[in-house]
């Protein structure tokens, strides 16, 4: 709780910080390879990549920038890989770091499938959704999208 004595200052500081955070997130999400994920998400990703740091690229996550309702958000993930017996994506894990449980879904692919899948997911709040792809040679790639989750109208 904010102290009643210095409300204006605290509010301005909070806002400055808030703005900075938003800008930083937007920036990272366009350009940065690092995944500044929350601990539970971080752990899930580490277990999936077997400790490797994923490289940004190859995997592409498509989500609306603003979800009309967080309970049903269409999502497509695809990986740029030929899908031959020699080179294919084994698994793509989707995690939503702002959900009560970060795990969303894991797709398992084979050389007999195309590295692309679409489903509809639940997002509890505005947050980053992360896709991590593991290739058959063990290399790992990632993508992240921020989804603003709308909360309706008059509040009830």
């Amino acid at each position, binding site marked *: 709780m904010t102290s009643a004595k210095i409300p204006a200052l605290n509010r301005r500081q909070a806002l400055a910080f808030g703005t900075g955070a938003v800008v930083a997130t937007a920036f990272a999400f366009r350009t940065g390879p690092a995944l500044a994920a929350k601990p539970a998400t971080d752990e899930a990703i580490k277990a999936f990549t077997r400790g490797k740091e994923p490289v940004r690229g190859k995997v592409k996550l498509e989500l609306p920038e603003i979800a009309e309702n967080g*309970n*049903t*958000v269409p999502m497509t993930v695809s990986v740029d890989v030929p*899908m031959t017996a020699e080179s294919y994506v084994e698994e793509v894990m989707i995690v*939503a770091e702002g*959900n*009560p*449980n970060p*795990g*969303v*879904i*894991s*797709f*398992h*692919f*084979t*050389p*007999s*499938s*195309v590295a*692309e*899948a*679409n*489903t*509809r*997911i*639940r*997002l509890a709040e505005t947050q980053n959704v992360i896709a991590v792809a593991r290739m058959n040679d063990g290399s790992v790639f990632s993508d992240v999208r921020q989804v603003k989750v709308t909360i309706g109208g008059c509040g009830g």
Partner: protein
Amino acid sequence: MADVKPRIKLDKKDVAKGGIIEVKTLVSHTMESGQRKDKDGKVIPRKILNKFTCDLNGKTIFSADIESAVSANPYFQFKIKPEETGTLTFTWIDDDGSKIQATEQIKVA
């Protein structure tokens, strides 16, 4: 519904070797997340479909491990590159161990 009939749509059922079939599946299920509470504030236990597989002649060619963050009435759209003629079997596994299953015949020339 007691016996759930999944909706399945293949954009084609006849492809040349190396050809691609787009598959869409939709199945009726509440996907109870385990995070909702009933009117008395008691947590409604989780009951979801936790696994989906697409097999061709008994061999899995695409599958998904599903968590409670997948929306009710799960929808999957994906593409397969079948290498042989045969039966596609789609299976959803419920937390209670029950299965929903459907099959489609495809031809690969």
